[in-house]
Structures are given as structure tokens and as C-alpha cells.
């Protein structure tokens, strides 16, 4: 026998041992790196850099050995009867897209976009009483839409408010997502698999909501990003900011203000 026999022998171990090694939560924790704004929060638990698999408030987080994290939100699909706004017009408009679809002259059917000019307009258009509109950092918004996803049968599966904005230093995105009873996917798979640079931290807001934050280096031109998630009222709230290292404070403030505005 030689060392290669042992090496190959290890290659024959059962899949459950491989899975365990990828997801195991080591009992010894690394010293946390604390974000400045999060240090002020009442509770701050750091989960970065160690194997994590467990429920963290409204989320299930699985640390992958090789590819960052997998995150799933703990939410229920919202019954359509709870969505009372004009967004229901999409259940007529989307089937028409399918009916009138032409491969050479139409957008691919199944999505409907409504441009809005204010948070209040977006909330009224959807008409879901648990929906909140978190604060957004800039008055100027480049893109402010409600996106609706539906099927040929007119069933609406997903509704999303999307806002993008840019300052000279930081770009920010703010997505608020509702999954309806007709959504047939895995309940909100956030992802982050494929980004080995991602590190996750978690804090509790003044309103007792858990907020998970991913920091990633996987941006273009050496920029970093912070992406935060909160769930409440079966709605998933996301805020993303991309920045150069020197502008970190502004990016952190965007995340902080956004998180604290959700009740």
C-alpha cells in the first residue's frame, strides 16, 4: 500500500460524509469582523467564515464549502385574495401577451412591468396590507417599477417592486418581493452559491427583525457590495449597495437606514 491507495480509499467514502464536511458548523468560531453600523445594534451575531447550516430568523442559511452560501427565506405564499390592488390587471394582460406573442416582434411573454413614480403609488397598485415600502437613499431614482410574473392562464406568481439609484460613489438597488399562492418554485431561494468571496453577518434591528447581510468582493472593477435581506409579513425585502472601499460608510448607511425603516 502507498499513500495513493489511501488517497483513493478516501475517494470512496459515502456521499453523506462529503455533505457533512461541506456543511458542518465547527464548534470553534472565528473572531468576528464587526461592521461599524451593526455594532450599534442591540444584537449582533457573526456567522462569517464558518460552516453554518441552520435557521436564522426568517432564513435558512447553508454555508457551502466551495461556493459561498445558499439562503432560503421562510415565508408563506400569499393568497391572491389578499392582493387587492390594480396589479390584478396583469392576470388579463399576461395571457394577452401569450396570445399575441410573435417571436420577432414581441418581448417574451409572462412578465408585466408597471412604471410608478412613488412608493405610495407602488403600494397602492399592489394593495397588500402587510406590504411596507422601506426608505431609499436617493431622491433621484433611475428605475422604479412593479414587475409581475404570471402564466398563460393568468395566474400571478410573483410581484416585485424594483428601485435602482446611483450616487457618484455608490449604486443601490432595492427589491421587495411577494410570492403568491401560484408560485410553484422552491420558496424564495436567494442564492449566493457561486460567490466564494461572500461572507455573511447578521444583526437584529431596533424593530426586532433579523437582517442578514452578505459582503462580497465579486463586483466589477474591484468594487465590493453589501446585500441585506429581511423578511416580515411574508414579504422579502432586499437592499444592495456596491461601492469602492473608500465609500464604505455611505454604503453601510444605506443598508442601515433601509433595515431600520422596516417595521
Amino acid at each position, binding site marked *: *500500500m502507498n499513500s495513493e*491507495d*489511501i*488517497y483513493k480509499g478516501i475517494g470512496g*467514502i459515502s456521499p453523506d460524509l462529503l455533505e457533512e464536511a461541506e456543511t458542518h458548523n*465547527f464548534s470553534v468560531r472565528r473572531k468576528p469582523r464587526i461592521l461599524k453600523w451593526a455594532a450599534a445594534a442591540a444584537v449582533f451575531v457573526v456567522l462569517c*467564515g464558518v460552516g453554518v447550516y441552520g435557521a436564522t430568523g426568517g432564513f435558512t442559511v447553508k454555508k457551502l*464549502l*466551495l461556493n459561498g452560501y445558499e439562503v432560503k427565506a421562510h415565508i408563506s405564499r400569499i393568497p391572491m385574495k389578499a392582493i387587492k390592488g390594480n396589479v390584478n390587471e396583469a392576470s388579463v394582460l399576461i395571457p394577452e401577451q401569450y396570445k399575441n406573442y410573435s417571436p420577432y416582434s414581441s418581448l417574451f411573454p409572462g412578465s408585466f412591468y408597471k412604471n410608478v413614480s412613488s412608493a405610495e403609488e407602488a403600494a397602492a397598485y399592489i394593495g397588500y396590507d402587510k406590504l411596507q415600502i422601506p426608505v431609499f437613499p436617493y431622491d433621484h431614482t433611475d428605475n422604479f417599477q412593479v414587475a409581475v410574473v404570471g402564466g398563460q392562464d393568468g395566474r400571478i406568481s410573483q410581484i416585485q417592486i424594483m428601485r435602482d439609484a446611483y450616487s457618484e460613489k455608490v449604486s443601490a438597488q432595492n427589491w421587495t418581493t411577494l410570492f403568491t399562492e401560484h408560485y410553484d418554485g422552491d420558496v424564495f431561494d436567494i442564492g449566493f452559491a457561486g460567490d466564494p468571496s461572500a461572507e455573511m453577518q447578521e444583526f437584529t434591528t431596533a424593530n426586532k427583525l433579523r437582517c442578514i447581510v452578505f459582503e462580497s468582493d465579486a463586483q466589477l472593477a474591484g468594487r465590493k457590495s453589501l446585500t441585506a435581506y429581511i423578511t416580515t409579513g411574508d414579504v422579502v425585502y432586499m437592499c444592495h449597495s456596491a461601492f469602492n472601499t473608500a465609500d464604505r460608510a455611505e454604503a453601510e448607511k444605506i443598508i442601515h437606514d433601509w433595515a431600520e425603516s422596516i417595521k
Partner: protein
Amino acid sequence: MDDKELVRLFWDRDETALAECGQKYGSWLRRIAMNILELPEDAEECVNDALLAAWNRIPPHEPESLKAFLGKLIRDIAVSRYRENHAARRDSSLRVMLDELAETVPSSFRVEDEVEANALSALIESWLRAQKKDERALFVRRYYYGETVKSLAAAYGCSEQKMAQIMLRLRRSLKKAIEKTEAVK
């Protein structure tokens, strides 16, 4: 797409199996190959070779775990590639890992055929299951995935020196387990 559907595509000789498999497991396979070979181009070729090997072996194989099946292929292919390259530096990742594993090898033990190789796998697995969870995970990450001692130390929250000691203790324990089995034979 789940693994059963993927294996079905292989059995149906549907070439989309390769693309789907590459999409699902490509980065995972690439990282294992990279840990062994340290060369992105070689690692990429190994991933392609592993997918091709899977295409050639399924059927007749119908692996219960496609991930483990692919993991075994990529490790074997990466070792072969390593041998081919063999301007083998003494400090290459695989060389270091194999040198460490040499400490677990009792001189009398022989692995002559596949049956004995399978018996060795079963023995290692049995030994692994007797270890604490932390140490089991560390051992698999080091000697299956080829993760470096430095990276494991960072994940575990200890110094590299401490991690090297943990690994040394585990290798000695495995060697004893193998010797014990040999003595019973």
C-alpha cells in the same frame, strides 16, 4: 434539475446531460481539481475529462449519488494529470497531501485489486464515523477536497500549527485503525 433526472439523461444518451451536469457541478469539480493541480487550465481540462468519463460510464453505472460519483472521477483524473505533468515540485499541493497520507500506511498492507480497494474505503469510512464531527469534517476537507491546512485553520478558528497537529493526530489514529484490521486478518 435533480440528480435522478440528470442520470436519466445520461441513460437516454441525451447530450444535454453534459451541459446540465457542468452547470450543476462544474464549479465544485473545478475547485477540487484546482486544489490538486493548482493550474486553472489543467483543472478545466480535468472537469471536461470527468464529464466525458461520466458520459462513458453511465450507463452501465447508475450512481446513487451523482455528486460522489463525479467527485471520485475528478480526483482520479486530477491525480493522473498530476503524474503526467510530473515535473512534480516537492511542494505541490498533491505531493504535500500524499506525503502526509504516507504516514498512515502500514508497511505490510497491500491493495492488490478493486475488492481490497473497496475494503480500504470501507475501513476508512468506519474509522471516520468513529471520529468527532469536527475532526471528521476537517479530515474530509483536507484529504478528499484537498483544502489547505491554512484554509482549514482559518475556517476552524485556530493557528496553522494547531491544525497541523490535529491532522497529524488523525493520521496516526487512521494508521492504527488500518494496522489493527491487518492484525485481525
